[in-house]
């Protein structure tokens, strides 16, 4: 490595020409105040020391705050402790940083030096040597050359390619639990299951749902599930709304899925699965806060804006003898976003009469 000081004379690198102009070489080095004035030098030294002093004070503040300040249940006290320790750390760090940089800028050398670069390409001899060594190795091993051993090479490559499977197959195989992807296709809703309030699980009477109301609903018994409660909730949540029956355009084939303006839709967006929950009762529009798909509840929750393509699945509901709202069946199609085999899981009301078992196809 050749480093040269740069006084005024140009090195060979400065003599490069470009567009007919000569490279003028490095500019004249102008000394700093601290280089020529001992007073400025002393002053800079004091400044650096003072900055390091700030850091020491900061450390004391941080440790002192930690030891001296009490954190109680009050939000104020938590905020105060964090702020005090944080500002202490800030001072402790910034003092060192500014001090060291100020030192480098004012007192260490600022006279630039020049270092030659060397092309990264290896020398020709180096390359030839490398190639020869590799050739010798290939020859020695029988990978190629005169005594080529194709059976060895072939079996080795096969073994190497297959061996990772010994590790990956069981590992990946275990990671997907039961791999029963048909679970995507159905939820825990069954015929006669009551619609209950989220989160406390109390049943809802039809008379409770006045016009303009929006109830966030979970299936009866969800809170008592021992296993997969959260997975079932993720699929089964429903929004229960009541519109003025005159505003509600019932969809063909679904005339008896709602009750006097009370209508229930899956809360899971058909775009990418966020809970669609922003209900504007005047326009009857449901908005998803994640990507703003907008569904028109008055018209079968069809998409009126945004990235979703399909309407929200409707949950067929009825009212039982005691006046509570119940489901007529599971959803008649998979809820939530689309996936490759979605249509295979789409039942045509299979669960309508099936209140014990939840299997779809």
């Amino acid at each position, binding site marked *: 490595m050749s480093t040269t000081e740069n006084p005024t004379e140009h090195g060979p690198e400065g003599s490069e020409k470009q567009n007919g102009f000569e490279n003028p070489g490095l500019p004249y080095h102008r000394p700093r105040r601290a280089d020529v004035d001992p007073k400025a030098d002393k002053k800079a030294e004091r400044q650096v020391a003072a900055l390091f002093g700030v850091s020491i004070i900061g450390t004391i503040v941080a440790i002192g705050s930690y030891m001296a300040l009490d954190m109680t249940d009050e939000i104020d006290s938590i905020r105060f402790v*964090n702020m005090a320790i944080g500002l202490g750390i800030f001072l402790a760090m910034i003092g060192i*940083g500014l001090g060291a940089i100020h030192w480098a800028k004012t007192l260490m050398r600022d006279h630039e030096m020049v270092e030659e*670069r060397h092309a990264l390409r290896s020398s020709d001899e180096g390359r030839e040597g490398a190639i020869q060594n590799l050739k010798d190795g290939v020859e020695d091993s029988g990978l190629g050359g005169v005594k080529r051993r194709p059976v060895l090479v072939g079996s080795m490559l096969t073994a190497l390619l297959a061996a990772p499977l010994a590790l990956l197959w069981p590992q990946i195989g275990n990671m997907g639990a039961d791999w029963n992807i048909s679970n995507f296709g159905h939820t825990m809703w069954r015929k006669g299951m009551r619609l209950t309030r989220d989160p406390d699980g109390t049943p809802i009477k039809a008379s409770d749902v006045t016009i303009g109301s929006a109830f966030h609903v*979970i299936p009866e018994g969800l809170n008592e599930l021992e296993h997969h409660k959260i997975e079932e909730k*993720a699929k089964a949540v429903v929004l229960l709304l009541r519109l003025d029956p005159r505003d509600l355009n019932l969809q063909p084939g679904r005339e008896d899925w709602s009750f006097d303006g009370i209508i229930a839709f899956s809360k899971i967006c058909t775009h990418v699965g966020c809970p669609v929950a922003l209900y504007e009762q005047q326009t009857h529009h449901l908005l998803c*806060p994640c990507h703003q798909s907008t569904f028109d509840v008055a018209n079968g929750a069809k998409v009126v804006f945004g990235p979703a393509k399909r309407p929200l699945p409707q949950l067929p509901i009825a009212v039982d003898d005691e006046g509570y709202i119940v489901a007529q069946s599971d959803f008649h199609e998979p809820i939530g976003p689309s996936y490759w085999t979605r249509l295979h899981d789409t039942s045509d009301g299979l669960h309508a009469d099936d209140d014990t078992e939840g299997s779809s196809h």
Partner: protein
Amino acid sequence: MGARLDSAAAGTANYIDERTSIGGFVKFFARKLFPDHWSFMLGEIALYSFVVLLLSGVFLTAFFVPSMTIVEYDGPLATMQGVEMSEAFASTLHMSFEVPGGLLMRQIHHWAALLFTAAIVTHMARVFFTGAFRKPRELNWLVGFTLMILSLAAGFSGYSLPDDVLSGNGLRIIEGVTRSIPIVGEYISYWIFGGEFPGEILIPRLFTMHILLVPGLILVLIALHLFLVFLHKHTQYPGGGRTHKNVVGLPLFPVYTAKAGGFFFVVFGIVALVAAIFTINPVWNYGPYDPSPVSAGTQPDWYILFVDGALRLMPGWLFDVIPMEWEIWGYTLSWNLLVPALILPGLFFGFLALYPWIEAWATGDRGEKHVLDRPRNAPVRTGIGVALITFYVVLVMEGSNDIIANLFHLSLNDLTYFFRIGIFVLPALAFWITRRICFGLQRKDRELVLHGKETGRIVRHEHGEYVEVHEPLTDEERWVLIQHDDIAPLEIEPEFNDRGVRRKGYRWDRFKQWLSRIYFEKRISPVTAEELAEAQHEHGHH
């Protein structure tokens, strides 16, 4: 005392050197030169925020419990009393509300993460606009690009760990996108979540990814990135005495040890300051994850926001007639997810990763480039860079459209319609305007070289004409304005040789020529010595 210390130091040095031959390394590294420029420190910001992430992250692991087991909250926070939550969420609340300085560490960690990704992007932009990715640094550009992708993975996996409503909805979006992949999507989803969403295993899996796998890869690649920087030696901006064959700067020891070392403390200090004053990711506001609730302002951290923006931008029905979800032979293909969440980011990042080669095909230049370009001297590249940034910013704005709508009393629907057009128009416009500005600046440079700087002094000639006195540039000032190469579009060999045989590789050459013409067909050449002599000759005649 001093002498004894010296001899002790010498003894230690001798002990180590005899066992490691470290002397050679120290000799090589200690006086290694680095050029001085503020923009060369952007990558350091990323490096140092990563160190801050490691330091604060170690603290967090001491308190965080990566478990989805449900517990009942019993801590000081009144709004969470008796609420059921996962241990992950409960331990996050515990470290925030009951460990003095714990919330500070969380906030330092999260702010440092935002800074880490922001610094990487800024550093990448600097490298792009100055052409620092050119030979021999193409491979290091790829290493840096991979680090950028890993930083997104690190950020997203960490953001999801507290198991709150906000990040849970983010994961649900990831799940939906994963499931949309044709044929294998549903199985990949099962593989990631260990069954149906959300399952009980995801947080521990993300935890391992977040504290071991991703940071481990980042560390290895940072080492490779820095090794290549040492190997290539740093690039430098044009100036007198600086060429493609040398490097002009100050030595690593002591100047850069102090400057760069000190800068670490500055970065740490500023992150601590921001974390002391500003709340970040207040998970106690969102509450523990529950698949039913969602809150207005459900967005990811800024570095993933562009994907969210793309998802919002894509209509489910094109012009209200063409569905963006197809049902073919009983299978469903969701373009409204695949395009914005997978295809578009894939193309965007793929183009970025390959860019050094695309430009190399266009220039046909095989030499090592160590002097950086001034962005104006590469108008097409600069235009492409600004267009890419514009494209990205449009997506980020669309991802924030509800916030913008609420803040400025606009309609989010109108904003979406605007950005749906803007995503095509604005980047093209940005490219065109930027290129024009570059040409304008190049013309100004030519003016300066040919006619000198305006001095503001007006003199009156004998024959009554008033003229402003122009002062010629110094050699050094002029050199900066004329040192760049004047690259002409590629000339290629004809399709048929003299015997009428079609040449192999002609199509590829044609492609490169086409690319080259895009870059260099229209260009403004730097002033040559002859042109300057001519101009001075004319001035003399005045």
